[in-house]
Protein backbone atom coordinates (compact mmCIF):
# COMPACT_ATOMS: atom_id res chain seq x y z
CA UNK A 1 0.00 0.00 0.00
CA UNK A 2 1.41 3.40 -0.91
CA UNK A 3 2.57 5.51 2.00
CA UNK A 4 1.15 8.63 3.61
CA UNK A 5 3.30 10.66 1.22
CA UNK A 6 3.73 9.17 -2.20
CA UNK A 7 5.17 10.67 -5.36
CA UNK A 8 6.05 9.25 -8.71
CA UNK A 9 8.08 10.92 -11.44
CA UNK A 10 7.61 14.51 -10.28
CA UNK A 11 9.01 17.03 -12.73
CA UNK A 12 8.98 20.80 -12.31
CA UNK A 13 10.97 23.23 -14.41
CA UNK A 14 11.52 26.95 -13.95
CA UNK A 15 12.69 28.25 -17.29
CA UNK A 16 15.95 26.42 -17.98
CA UNK A 17 16.31 24.91 -14.53
CA UNK A 18 14.82 21.50 -13.84
CA UNK A 19 14.08 22.00 -10.15
CA UNK A 20 12.55 18.51 -9.97
CA UNK A 21 13.78 15.96 -12.46
CA UNK A 22 11.74 12.83 -11.84
CA UNK A 23 11.41 12.50 -8.06
CA UNK A 24 9.86 9.38 -6.53
CA UNK A 25 8.99 9.24 -2.85
CA UNK A 26 7.20 6.81 -0.58
CA UNK A 27 6.93 7.64 3.10
CA UNK A 28 5.13 5.00 5.21
CA UNK A 29 2.61 6.25 7.74
CA UNK A 30 4.12 7.30 11.06
CA UNK A 31 7.70 7.60 9.78
CA UNK A 32 10.05 10.50 9.11
CA UNK A 33 11.71 11.01 5.77
CA UNK A 34 14.70 13.30 5.86
CA UNK A 35 15.23 14.96 2.52
CA UNK A 36 18.84 15.95 2.47
CA UNK A 37 20.48 18.13 -0.11
CA UNK A 38 22.34 21.36 -0.73
CA UNK A 39 20.64 24.66 -1.43
CA UNK A 40 19.03 24.51 -4.84
CA UNK A 41 18.75 20.74 -4.90
CA UNK A 42 14.98 20.92 -5.30
CA UNK A 43 13.92 20.21 -1.73
CA UNK A 44 11.70 23.26 -1.36
CA UNK A 45 10.15 22.70 -4.77
CA UNK A 46 9.28 19.13 -3.77
CA UNK A 47 7.65 20.35 -0.55
CA UNK A 48 5.72 23.02 -2.46
CA UNK A 49 4.36 20.46 -4.90
CA UNK A 50 3.36 18.06 -2.11
CA UNK A 51 1.64 20.83 -0.14
CA UNK A 52 -0.40 21.97 -3.19
CA UNK A 53 1.44 25.29 -3.51
CA UNK A 54 2.88 24.38 -6.90
CA UNK A 55 1.53 22.22 -9.71
CA UNK A 56 4.01 19.70 -11.04
CA UNK A 57 4.68 19.71 -14.79
CA UNK A 58 4.58 15.93 -14.78
CA UNK A 59 4.18 13.07 -12.36
CA UNK A 60 1.67 12.27 -9.64
CA UNK A 61 1.67 12.80 -5.90
CA UNK A 62 -0.69 11.64 -3.20
CA UNK A 63 -0.71 12.88 0.37
CA UNK A 64 -2.83 11.00 2.93
CA UNK A 65 -4.16 9.01 0.00
CA UNK A 66 -5.44 12.07 -1.87
CA UNK A 67 -4.12 13.33 -5.20
CA UNK A 68 -2.55 16.77 -4.71
CA UNK A 69 -3.51 18.08 -8.14
CA UNK A 70 -7.05 16.69 -8.33
CA UNK A 71 -8.17 17.43 -4.75
CA UNK A 72 -5.91 20.10 -3.29
CA UNK A 73 -8.48 21.23 -0.73
CA UNK A 74 -8.79 17.74 0.78
CA UNK A 75 -4.99 17.51 0.95
CA UNK A 76 -4.83 20.88 2.72
CA UNK A 77 -7.12 19.60 5.43
CA UNK A 78 -4.77 16.70 6.15
CA UNK A 79 -1.45 18.54 6.24
CA UNK A 80 0.51 21.03 8.28
CA UNK A 81 3.28 23.07 6.70
CA UNK A 82 6.13 24.81 8.39
CA UNK A 83 8.07 26.60 5.70
CA UNK A 84 11.55 28.03 5.48
CA UNK A 85 10.48 31.30 7.05
CA UNK A 86 8.53 31.62 10.24
CA UNK A 87 5.30 32.53 8.47
CA UNK A 88 3.56 34.34 11.28
CA UNK A 89 2.01 37.80 11.30
CA UNK A 90 4.39 39.85 13.40
CA UNK A 91 1.79 42.47 14.31
CA UNK A 92 -0.55 39.85 15.73
CA UNK A 93 0.04 38.25 19.12
CA UNK A 94 0.97 34.59 19.30
CA UNK A 95 -2.56 33.77 20.36
CA UNK A 96 -4.17 35.83 17.59
CA UNK A 97 -1.98 34.11 15.00
CA UNK A 98 -3.04 30.65 16.13
CA UNK A 99 -6.74 31.54 16.45
CA UNK A 100 -6.69 32.97 12.93
CA UNK A 101 -5.12 29.82 11.50
CA UNK A 102 -7.62 27.65 13.42
CA UNK A 103 -10.55 29.60 12.02
CA UNK A 104 -9.15 29.30 8.52
CA UNK A 105 -9.00 25.52 9.07
CA UNK A 106 -12.79 26.02 9.47
CA UNK A 107 -12.84 25.55 13.26
CA UNK A 108 -15.43 27.42 15.31
CA UNK A 109 -14.20 30.49 17.18
CA UNK A 110 -14.42 28.71 20.52
CA UNK A 111 -12.54 25.62 19.31
CA UNK A 112 -9.88 27.76 17.68
CA UNK A 113 -9.32 29.67 20.96
CA UNK A 114 -9.11 26.51 23.04
CA UNK A 115 -6.68 24.91 20.61
CA UNK A 116 -4.54 28.05 20.51
CA UNK A 117 -4.28 28.07 24.31
CA UNK A 118 -3.24 24.38 24.34
CA UNK A 119 -0.57 24.88 21.71
CA UNK A 120 0.84 28.00 23.36
CA UNK A 121 1.33 26.04 26.59
CA UNK A 122 2.79 23.05 24.81
CA UNK A 123 5.28 25.14 22.87
CA UNK A 124 6.30 27.07 25.94
CA UNK A 125 4.87 30.34 24.65
CA UNK A 126 2.29 30.78 27.41
CA UNK A 127 3.98 33.84 28.91
CA UNK A 128 4.39 35.51 25.53
CA UNK A 129 0.95 34.52 24.21
CA UNK A 130 -0.47 38.02 24.28
CA UNK A 131 2.58 39.86 23.01
CA UNK A 132 2.93 40.62 19.32
CA UNK A 133 5.12 38.16 17.44
CA UNK A 134 7.37 41.12 16.54
CA UNK A 135 8.78 40.94 20.07
CA UNK A 136 9.61 37.21 19.79
CA UNK A 137 13.09 35.79 19.38
CA UNK A 138 13.92 33.72 16.32
CA UNK A 139 13.41 30.50 18.22
CA UNK A 140 10.05 31.63 19.58
CA UNK A 141 8.85 32.57 16.09
CA UNK A 142 9.84 29.16 14.82
CA UNK A 143 7.92 27.51 17.63
CA UNK A 144 4.90 29.67 16.89
CA UNK A 145 5.15 28.78 13.21
CA UNK A 146 5.32 25.10 14.08
CA UNK A 147 2.34 25.50 16.42
CA UNK A 148 0.40 27.09 13.55
CA UNK A 149 1.18 24.06 11.41
CA UNK A 150 -0.18 21.79 14.15
CA UNK A 151 -3.48 23.54 14.82
CA UNK A 152 -5.58 20.65 13.50
CA UNK A 153 -3.14 17.88 14.53
CA UNK A 154 -2.62 17.00 10.89
CA UNK A 155 -1.67 13.36 10.19
CA UNK A 156 0.96 14.50 7.69
CA UNK A 157 3.49 17.26 8.33
CA UNK A 158 5.96 19.00 6.08
CA UNK A 159 8.85 20.97 7.49
CA UNK A 160 11.13 22.82 5.15
CA UNK A 161 14.47 23.41 6.85
CA UNK A 162 12.87 23.92 10.24
CA UNK A 163 16.07 24.77 12.10
CA UNK A 164 17.93 26.86 9.53
CA UNK A 165 19.22 29.99 11.22
CA UNK A 166 18.60 28.81 14.78
CA UNK A 167 21.26 28.74 17.46
CA UNK A 168 22.25 25.31 18.84
CA UNK A 169 20.08 25.59 21.95
CA UNK A 170 16.95 26.48 20.01
CA UNK A 171 17.74 23.82 17.43
CA UNK A 172 17.92 21.24 20.19
CA UNK A 173 14.61 22.44 21.62
CA UNK A 174 12.94 22.20 18.23
CA UNK A 175 14.33 18.70 17.69
CA UNK A 176 12.75 17.64 20.98
CA UNK A 177 9.39 18.97 19.83
CA UNK A 178 9.68 17.20 16.49
CA UNK A 179 10.60 13.91 18.15
CA UNK A 180 7.62 14.19 20.45
CA UNK A 181 5.39 14.82 17.46
CA UNK A 182 6.66 11.79 15.59
CA UNK A 183 6.28 9.61 18.68
CA UNK A 184 2.59 10.56 18.48
CA UNK A 185 2.29 8.92 15.04
CA UNK A 186 2.61 11.88 12.68
CA UNK A 187 4.11 11.23 9.27
CA UNK A 188 6.77 13.81 8.57
CA UNK A 189 8.74 14.94 5.58
CA UNK A 190 11.63 17.09 6.72
CA UNK A 191 14.09 18.85 4.46
CA UNK A 192 17.44 19.85 5.80
CA UNK A 193 20.94 20.86 4.85
CA UNK A 194 22.21 19.61 8.19
CA UNK A 195 23.44 16.06 8.05
CA UNK A 196 23.29 15.81 11.81
CA UNK A 197 19.63 16.73 11.76
CA UNK A 198 18.70 14.03 9.26
CA UNK A 199 20.78 11.52 11.20
CA UNK A 200 19.06 12.42 14.41
CA UNK A 201 15.41 12.72 13.34
CA UNK A 202 14.78 10.69 10.20
CA UNK A 203 13.94 7.00 9.85
CA UNK A 204 14.78 7.14 6.16
CA UNK A 205 16.89 9.59 4.28
CA UNK A 206 16.85 10.51 0.65
CA UNK A 207 19.71 12.52 -0.75
CA UNK A 208 18.63 15.00 -3.40
CA UNK A 209 20.84 16.83 -5.86
CA UNK A 210 19.90 18.66 -9.07
CA UNK A 211 16.25 17.69 -8.69
CA UNK A 212 16.93 13.96 -8.47
CA UNK A 213 16.98 11.49 -5.61
CA UNK A 214 20.51 10.16 -5.86
CA UNK A 215 20.39 7.81 -2.88
CA UNK A 216 17.95 6.58 -0.30
CA UNK A 217 17.97 4.33 2.73
CA UNK A 218 18.42 4.47 6.46
CA UNK A 219 21.27 6.49 7.86
CA UNK A 220 23.20 3.24 8.51
CA UNK A 221 22.58 1.90 5.01
CA UNK A 222 23.82 5.11 3.45
CA UNK A 223 26.92 5.15 5.60
CA UNK A 224 27.64 1.51 4.73
CA UNK A 225 27.66 2.49 1.06
CA UNK A 226 30.73 4.65 1.55
CA UNK A 227 32.73 1.87 3.13
CA UNK A 228 32.82 0.26 6.52
CA UNK A 229 34.26 1.25 9.85
CA UNK A 230 37.82 2.20 10.59
CA UNK A 231 40.11 2.56 13.56
CA UNK A 232 41.64 5.94 14.25
CA UNK A 233 44.58 6.26 16.62
CA UNK A 234 46.41 9.38 17.74
CA UNK A 235 49.72 8.52 19.37
CA UNK A 236 51.37 10.72 21.96
CA UNK A 237 54.85 10.96 20.38
CA UNK A 238 55.92 10.90 16.71
CA UNK A 239 58.51 8.17 17.38
CA UNK A 240 55.67 5.78 18.24
CA UNK A 241 54.16 6.11 14.77
CA UNK A 242 56.06 3.20 13.09
CA UNK A 243 55.23 0.73 15.86
CA UNK A 244 51.58 1.74 15.89
CA UNK A 245 51.47 1.50 12.12
CA UNK A 246 52.81 -2.05 12.28
CA UNK A 247 50.15 -3.08 14.79
CA UNK A 248 47.34 -1.59 12.73
CA UNK A 249 48.57 -3.01 9.41
CA UNK A 250 48.46 -6.47 10.91
CA UNK A 251 44.69 -6.24 11.47
CA UNK A 252 43.62 -3.79 8.73
CA UNK A 253 41.48 -4.78 5.74
CA UNK A 254 43.24 -2.57 3.25
CA UNK A 255 45.51 0.40 3.07
CA UNK A 256 45.29 3.13 5.66
CA UNK A 257 46.62 6.61 6.21
CA UNK A 258 49.33 7.95 8.52
CA UNK A 259 49.56 11.66 9.18
CA UNK A 260 52.81 12.58 10.96
CA UNK A 261 51.65 16.14 11.72
CA UNK A 262 48.62 15.19 13.74
CA UNK A 263 50.18 11.79 14.69
CA UNK A 264 46.95 10.21 13.49
CA UNK A 265 46.64 6.75 11.92
CA UNK A 266 43.47 5.65 10.17
CA UNK A 267 42.92 2.07 8.93
CA UNK A 268 39.81 0.30 7.62
CA UNK A 269 38.79 -2.70 9.67
CA UNK A 270 36.06 -5.21 10.29
CA UNK A 271 35.45 -6.71 13.67
CA UNK A 272 34.11 -3.76 15.63
CA UNK A 273 34.61 -3.21 19.33
CA UNK A 274 36.25 -6.58 19.94
CA UNK A 275 39.04 -5.75 17.51
CA UNK A 276 39.37 -2.29 19.02
CA UNK A 277 40.02 -3.85 22.45
CA UNK A 278 42.67 -6.13 20.95
CA UNK A 279 44.41 -3.21 19.27
CA UNK A 280 44.47 -1.24 22.52
CA UNK A 281 46.00 -4.17 24.41
CA UNK A 282 48.59 -4.73 21.68
CA UNK A 283 49.62 -1.07 21.56
CA UNK A 284 49.79 -0.97 25.34
CA UNK A 285 51.99 -4.05 25.55
CA UNK A 286 54.42 -2.44 23.09
CA UNK A 287 54.62 0.70 25.16
CA UNK A 288 52.85 3.00 22.68
CA UNK A 289 51.28 5.93 24.49
CA UNK A 290 47.87 6.78 23.07
CA UNK A 291 46.21 10.23 23.12
CA UNK A 292 43.02 9.13 21.41
CA UNK A 293 41.66 5.96 19.89
CA UNK A 294 38.29 5.06 18.47
CA UNK A 295 36.23 3.08 16.09
CA UNK A 296 34.91 5.56 13.52
CA UNK A 297 31.96 4.94 11.27
CA UNK A 298 31.45 7.12 8.20
CA UNK A 299 29.44 10.22 8.87
CA UNK A 300 26.69 11.44 6.62
CA UNK A 301 29.19 14.07 5.57
CA UNK A 302 31.34 11.33 4.07
CA UNK A 303 28.25 9.92 2.38
CA UNK A 304 27.36 13.26 0.96
CA UNK A 305 30.78 13.89 -0.49
CA UNK A 306 30.92 10.40 -1.94
CA UNK A 307 27.51 10.80 -3.57
CA UNK A 308 27.59 14.35 -4.84
CA UNK A 309 31.25 15.13 -5.16
CA UNK A 310 30.84 18.18 -2.94
CA UNK A 311 30.06 18.86 0.67
CA UNK A 312 26.74 20.18 1.83
CA UNK A 313 28.60 23.12 3.34
CA UNK A 314 30.28 24.09 0.08
CA UNK A 315 26.97 23.97 -1.74
CA UNK A 316 25.38 26.07 0.94
CA UNK A 317 28.00 28.77 0.56
CA UNK A 318 27.12 28.92 -3.12
CA UNK A 319 23.47 29.54 -2.25
CA UNK A 320 21.55 32.71 -2.71
CA UNK A 321 19.02 34.80 -0.85
CA UNK A 322 16.38 32.63 0.81
CA UNK A 323 13.60 33.86 -1.46
CA UNK A 324 15.24 32.68 -4.65
CA UNK A 325 17.63 30.23 -3.11
CA UNK A 326 16.07 27.13 -4.52
CA UNK A 327 16.18 28.28 -8.09
CA UNK A 328 19.28 30.44 -8.18
CA UNK A 329 21.14 27.93 -6.04
CA UNK A 330 20.37 25.15 -8.51
CA UNK A 331 22.16 27.01 -11.26
CA UNK A 332 25.10 27.81 -8.97
CA UNK A 333 25.71 24.27 -7.82
CA UNK A 334 25.44 22.90 -11.33
CA UNK A 335 28.22 25.18 -12.48
CA UNK A 336 30.23 24.43 -9.40
CA UNK A 337 30.24 20.70 -9.95
CA UNK A 338 30.50 20.20 -13.68
Amino acid at each position, binding site marked *: *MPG*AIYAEGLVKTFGEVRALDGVDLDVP*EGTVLGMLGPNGAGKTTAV*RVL*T*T*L*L*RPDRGTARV*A*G*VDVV*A*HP*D*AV*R*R*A*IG*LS*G*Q*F*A*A*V*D*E*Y*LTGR*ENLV*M*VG*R*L*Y*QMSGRDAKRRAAELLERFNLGDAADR*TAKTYSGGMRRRLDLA*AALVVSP*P*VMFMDEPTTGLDPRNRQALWDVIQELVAG*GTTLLLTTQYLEEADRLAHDICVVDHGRVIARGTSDQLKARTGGERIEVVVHAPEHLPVAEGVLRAVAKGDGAVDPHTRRLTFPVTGGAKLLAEVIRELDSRGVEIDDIGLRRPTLDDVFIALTGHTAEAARDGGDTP*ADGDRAGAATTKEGVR
Partner: protein
Amino acid sequence: MSAFDQATGAAAARNPQPHGGLVRSVRDALVVAQRNLIRMLRIPEVVIFGLIQPIMFVVLFTYVFGGSIAVPGAPAGDAQAYREFLMAGIFAQTVTFATAGAGAGIADDMHKGLIDRFRSLPMSRGAVLTGRTLADLVQTALTLVVLAVVALLIGWRSHENPASVLAGFALLLLLGYAFSWIGALIGLSVRTPEAATSGGLLWLFPLTFISNAFVPVNGMPAFLQHVAEWNPFSATVAGARQLFGNTIEGVPQSVTGAWPMEHPVLASVIWSVLIIVVFRTLAVRKYRSATA
Protein backbone atom coordinates in the same frame (compact mmCIF):
# COMPACT_ATOMS: atom_id res chain seq x y z
CA MET B 1 -3.67 3.13 7.55
CA SER B 2 -5.84 4.56 10.24
CA ALA B 3 -6.17 8.29 10.69
CA PHE B 4 -6.38 9.14 7.03
CA ASP B 5 -6.94 6.04 4.94
CA GLN B 6 -7.80 6.31 1.30
CA ALA B 7 -11.54 6.11 1.94
CA THR B 8 -11.45 9.08 4.31
CA GLY B 9 -9.35 11.09 1.91
CA ALA B 10 -11.66 10.28 -0.98
CA ALA B 11 -14.74 11.15 1.09
CA ALA B 12 -13.16 14.46 2.00
CA ALA B 13 -12.45 15.09 -1.65
CA ARG B 14 -16.07 14.41 -2.61
CA ASN B 15 -17.37 16.80 0.01
CA PRO B 16 -14.73 19.48 -0.16
CA GLN B 17 -16.45 22.14 1.94
CA PRO B 18 -17.71 21.64 5.48
CA HIS B 19 -19.67 24.87 5.09
CA GLY B 20 -21.36 25.91 1.91
CA GLY B 21 -19.01 27.57 -0.55
CA LEU B 22 -20.41 31.06 -0.14
CA VAL B 23 -20.69 30.88 3.65
CA ARG B 24 -17.09 29.72 3.84
CA SER B 25 -15.89 32.46 1.50
CA VAL B 26 -17.57 35.19 3.54
CA ARG B 27 -16.42 33.73 6.84
CA ASP B 28 -12.81 33.34 5.69
CA ALA B 29 -12.76 36.84 4.21
CA LEU B 30 -13.99 38.28 7.51
CA VAL B 31 -11.30 36.39 9.45
CA VAL B 32 -8.64 37.86 7.16
CA ALA B 33 -10.24 41.33 7.28
CA GLN B 34 -10.18 41.17 11.07
CA ARG B 35 -6.50 40.30 10.95
CA ASN B 36 -5.76 43.27 8.70
CA LEU B 37 -7.79 45.65 10.87
CA ILE B 38 -5.88 44.53 13.98
CA ARG B 39 -2.66 45.27 12.07
CA MET B 40 -4.02 48.70 11.17
CA LEU B 41 -4.66 49.51 14.83
CA ARG B 42 -1.16 48.30 15.79
CA ILE B 43 0.54 50.35 13.04
CA PRO B 44 -1.42 53.64 13.26
CA GLU B 45 1.40 55.44 11.40
CA VAL B 46 0.10 53.99 8.17
CA VAL B 47 -3.33 55.54 8.67
CA ILE B 48 -1.85 58.83 9.83
CA PHE B 49 0.53 59.16 6.87
CA GLY B 50 -2.38 58.19 4.64
CA LEU B 51 -4.18 61.26 5.98
CA ILE B 52 -1.37 63.77 5.72
CA GLN B 53 -1.12 63.78 1.94
CA PRO B 54 -4.79 64.52 1.15
CA ILE B 55 -4.92 67.19 3.86
CA MET B 56 -1.78 68.75 2.42
CA PHE B 57 -3.34 68.67 -1.06
CA VAL B 58 -6.52 70.34 0.19
CA VAL B 59 -4.56 73.15 1.78
CA LEU B 60 -2.07 73.61 -1.08
CA PHE B 61 -4.65 73.49 -3.87
CA THR B 62 -7.10 75.73 -2.08
CA TYR B 63 -4.67 78.45 -1.11
CA VAL B 64 -2.05 78.20 -3.89
CA PHE B 65 -4.21 77.49 -6.96
CA GLY B 66 -7.58 78.60 -5.67
CA GLY B 67 -7.11 82.24 -6.59
CA SER B 68 -5.94 81.53 -10.15
CA ILE B 69 -8.27 78.84 -11.42
CA ALA B 70 -11.53 79.91 -13.00
CA VAL B 71 -14.34 77.46 -12.40
CA PRO B 72 -16.76 77.57 -15.37
CA GLY B 73 -19.78 79.62 -14.44
CA ALA B 74 -18.03 81.38 -11.57
CA PRO B 75 -16.04 84.62 -11.69
CA ALA B 76 -12.26 84.20 -12.03
CA GLY B 77 -10.49 84.00 -8.67
CA ASP B 78 -13.65 82.95 -6.80
CA ALA B 79 -11.90 80.89 -4.11
CA GLN B 80 -15.10 79.54 -2.61
CA ALA B 81 -16.25 78.23 -6.01
CA TYR B 82 -12.89 76.44 -6.43
CA ARG B 83 -13.05 74.94 -2.92
CA GLU B 84 -16.39 73.40 -3.75
CA PHE B 85 -15.15 72.27 -7.15
CA LEU B 86 -11.96 70.79 -5.72
CA MET B 87 -13.20 68.68 -2.81
CA ALA B 88 -14.80 65.87 -4.83
CA GLY B 89 -11.50 65.61 -6.73
CA ILE B 90 -9.42 65.37 -3.56
CA PHE B 91 -11.81 62.83 -2.05
CA ALA B 92 -11.61 60.72 -5.21
CA GLN B 93 -7.83 60.91 -5.38
CA THR B 94 -7.62 59.89 -1.73
CA VAL B 95 -9.68 56.75 -2.22
CA THR B 96 -7.50 55.65 -5.14
CA PHE B 97 -4.46 55.65 -2.86
CA ALA B 98 -5.94 52.53 -1.26
CA THR B 99 -4.30 50.82 -4.25
CA ALA B 100 -0.83 51.33 -2.85
CA GLY B 101 -1.85 50.12 0.61
CA ALA B 102 -3.40 46.90 -0.66
CA GLY B 103 -0.49 46.28 -3.00
CA ALA B 104 2.19 46.82 -0.37
CA GLY B 105 0.31 44.73 2.20
CA ILE B 106 -0.10 41.76 -0.09
CA ALA B 107 3.46 41.97 -1.39
CA ASP B 108 4.63 42.00 2.23
CA ASP B 109 2.56 38.90 3.00
CA MET B 110 4.12 37.16 0.00
CA HIS B 111 7.59 38.19 1.06
CA LYS B 112 7.13 36.94 4.62
CA GLY B 113 5.73 33.57 3.54
CA LEU B 114 2.24 34.29 4.88
CA ILE B 115 0.63 33.82 1.48
CA ASP B 116 2.18 30.34 1.37
CA ARG B 117 0.73 29.60 4.76
CA PHE B 118 -2.74 30.79 3.68
CA ARG B 119 -2.52 28.84 0.45
CA SER B 120 -1.71 25.64 2.33
CA LEU B 121 -4.86 26.03 4.46
CA PRO B 122 -8.26 24.65 3.45
CA MET B 123 -9.71 28.14 3.06
CA SER B 124 -11.59 29.87 0.29
CA ARG B 125 -9.32 30.91 -2.56
CA GLY B 126 -10.39 34.53 -2.80
CA ALA B 127 -10.60 35.18 0.95
CA VAL B 128 -7.09 36.49 1.54
CA LEU B 129 -7.56 39.18 -1.11
CA THR B 130 -11.19 39.93 -0.26
CA GLY B 131 -10.28 40.26 3.41
CA ARG B 132 -7.49 42.64 2.55
CA THR B 133 -9.65 44.83 0.28
CA LEU B 134 -12.45 44.94 2.88
CA ALA B 135 -10.02 46.10 5.56
CA ASP B 136 -8.73 48.75 3.15
CA LEU B 137 -12.31 49.86 2.58
CA VAL B 138 -12.70 50.48 6.32
CA GLN B 139 -9.47 52.44 6.38
CA THR B 140 -10.52 54.49 3.35
CA ALA B 141 -13.85 55.29 4.99
CA LEU B 142 -12.09 56.53 8.12
CA THR B 143 -9.77 58.65 6.01
CA LEU B 144 -12.73 60.19 4.19
CA VAL B 145 -14.45 61.10 7.47
CA VAL B 146 -11.37 62.95 8.72
CA LEU B 147 -10.83 64.61 5.36
CA ALA B 148 -14.48 65.72 5.17
CA VAL B 149 -14.10 67.42 8.56
CA VAL B 150 -10.98 69.23 7.36
CA ALA B 151 -12.84 70.25 4.21
CA LEU B 152 -15.73 71.66 6.23
CA LEU B 153 -13.27 73.60 8.37
CA ILE B 154 -11.73 75.35 5.37
CA GLY B 155 -15.11 76.22 3.94
CA TRP B 156 -16.32 73.33 1.77
CA ARG B 157 -20.12 73.16 1.77
CA SER B 158 -22.53 70.71 0.21
CA HIS B 159 -25.80 71.95 -1.27
CA GLU B 160 -27.71 68.68 -1.27
CA ASN B 161 -29.69 66.66 1.27
CA PRO B 162 -27.79 64.25 3.59
CA ALA B 163 -28.95 61.17 1.65
CA SER B 164 -27.44 62.56 -1.52
CA VAL B 165 -24.20 63.45 0.28
CA LEU B 166 -23.97 59.92 1.68
CA ALA B 167 -24.59 58.54 -1.81
CA GLY B 168 -21.68 60.68 -2.99
CA PHE B 169 -19.39 59.15 -0.38
CA ALA B 170 -20.66 55.66 -1.25
CA LEU B 171 -19.75 56.31 -4.88
CA LEU B 172 -16.24 57.32 -3.79
CA LEU B 173 -15.84 54.24 -1.58
CA LEU B 174 -16.93 51.98 -4.42
CA LEU B 175 -14.16 53.45 -6.56
CA GLY B 176 -11.66 52.98 -3.73
CA TYR B 177 -12.74 49.36 -3.33
CA ALA B 178 -12.34 48.78 -7.06
CA PHE B 179 -8.86 50.32 -7.03
CA SER B 180 -7.74 48.17 -4.11
CA TRP B 181 -8.29 45.14 -6.37
CA ILE B 182 -5.89 46.71 -8.86
CA GLY B 183 -3.49 47.07 -5.92
CA ALA B 184 -4.01 43.41 -4.98
CA LEU B 185 -2.97 42.35 -8.47
CA ILE B 186 0.09 44.63 -8.34
CA GLY B 187 1.03 43.26 -4.91
CA LEU B 188 0.92 39.68 -6.20
CA SER B 189 2.94 40.58 -9.30
CA VAL B 190 5.95 42.38 -7.85
CA ARG B 191 8.87 41.02 -5.86
CA THR B 192 9.04 43.43 -2.93
CA PRO B 193 6.65 45.54 -0.85
CA GLU B 194 8.65 48.64 -1.86
CA ALA B 195 8.02 47.94 -5.53
CA ALA B 196 4.33 47.51 -4.78
CA THR B 197 4.19 50.90 -3.09
CA SER B 198 5.86 52.81 -5.90
CA GLY B 199 4.21 50.66 -8.57
CA GLY B 200 0.88 51.29 -6.92
CA LEU B 201 1.34 55.07 -6.77
CA LEU B 202 3.16 55.99 -10.00
CA TRP B 203 0.34 55.53 -12.48
CA LEU B 204 -2.14 57.18 -10.12
CA PHE B 205 -0.64 60.60 -10.80
CA PRO B 206 -1.37 60.79 -14.54
CA LEU B 207 -4.66 59.03 -13.93
CA THR B 208 -5.85 61.54 -11.34
CA PHE B 209 -4.34 64.65 -12.97
CA ILE B 210 -5.56 64.03 -16.53
CA SER B 211 -9.09 64.37 -15.25
CA ASN B 212 -11.62 66.91 -14.08
CA ALA B 213 -10.48 66.54 -10.45
CA PHE B 214 -8.28 69.59 -9.87
CA VAL B 215 -8.80 71.89 -12.82
CA PRO B 216 -11.70 72.28 -15.25
CA VAL B 217 -11.20 70.22 -18.41
CA ASN B 218 -11.91 73.20 -20.72
CA GLY B 219 -8.37 74.53 -20.25
CA MET B 220 -6.77 71.32 -21.63
CA PRO B 221 -5.80 70.64 -25.28
CA ALA B 222 -8.68 69.05 -27.20
CA PHE B 223 -7.03 65.61 -27.24
CA LEU B 224 -6.60 65.59 -23.46
CA GLN B 225 -10.17 66.76 -22.98
CA HIS B 226 -11.39 63.50 -24.52
CA VAL B 227 -8.98 61.44 -22.44
CA ALA B 228 -9.99 63.27 -19.28
CA GLU B 229 -13.71 62.93 -19.83
CA TRP B 230 -13.54 59.20 -20.59
CA ASN B 231 -11.21 58.62 -17.65
CA PRO B 232 -13.11 56.38 -15.17
CA PHE B 233 -11.74 58.54 -12.39
CA SER B 234 -13.44 61.66 -13.86
CA ALA B 235 -16.81 59.94 -13.84
CA THR B 236 -16.58 59.40 -10.07
CA VAL B 237 -15.40 62.97 -9.48
CA ALA B 238 -18.26 64.35 -11.58
CA GLY B 239 -20.73 61.96 -9.92
CA ALA B 240 -19.65 62.94 -6.43
CA ARG B 241 -19.70 66.63 -7.36
CA GLN B 242 -23.25 66.23 -8.57
CA LEU B 243 -24.37 64.33 -5.45
CA PHE B 244 -22.71 66.90 -3.16
CA GLY B 245 -24.40 69.73 -5.07
CA ASN B 246 -21.01 71.23 -5.90
CA THR B 247 -21.86 71.92 -9.54
CA ILE B 248 -22.89 75.33 -10.77
CA GLU B 249 -26.45 75.68 -11.99
CA GLY B 250 -26.77 75.77 -15.76
CA VAL B 251 -23.13 74.84 -16.50
CA PRO B 252 -22.77 71.38 -18.13
CA GLN B 253 -20.10 69.12 -16.59
CA SER B 254 -18.99 67.97 -20.02
CA VAL B 255 -16.94 69.87 -22.60
CA THR B 256 -16.68 67.18 -25.29
CA GLY B 257 -20.13 65.74 -24.71
CA ALA B 258 -18.70 62.40 -23.54
CA TRP B 259 -21.42 60.01 -22.33
CA PRO B 260 -19.86 59.39 -18.86
CA MET B 261 -19.93 63.14 -18.16
CA GLU B 262 -23.61 63.38 -19.11
CA HIS B 263 -24.47 60.51 -16.69
CA PRO B 264 -21.61 60.62 -14.18
CA VAL B 265 -23.20 58.67 -11.30
CA LEU B 266 -24.26 55.76 -13.49
CA ALA B 267 -20.97 55.84 -15.39
CA SER B 268 -19.00 55.80 -12.15
CA VAL B 269 -20.89 52.75 -10.87
CA ILE B 270 -20.41 50.94 -14.18
CA TRP B 271 -16.67 51.71 -14.28
CA SER B 272 -16.13 50.62 -10.67
CA VAL B 273 -18.08 47.37 -11.03
CA LEU B 274 -16.21 46.61 -14.25
CA ILE B 275 -12.85 47.21 -12.55
CA ILE B 276 -13.85 44.96 -9.63
CA VAL B 277 -14.96 42.12 -11.91
CA VAL B 278 -11.88 42.24 -14.14
CA PHE B 279 -9.23 42.79 -11.49
CA ARG B 280 -10.75 40.45 -8.93
CA THR B 281 -10.74 37.67 -11.52
CA LEU B 282 -7.13 38.37 -12.49
CA ALA B 283 -5.95 38.76 -8.90
CA VAL B 284 -7.59 35.57 -7.64
CA ARG B 285 -6.16 33.64 -10.58
CA LYS B 286 -2.73 35.06 -9.80
CA TYR B 287 -3.13 34.20 -6.12
CA ARG B 288 -3.85 30.56 -6.93
CA SER B 289 -0.52 30.21 -8.66
CA ALA B 290 1.44 32.70 -6.55
CA THR B 291 4.99 31.76 -5.70
CA ALA B 292 6.97 33.73 -3.18
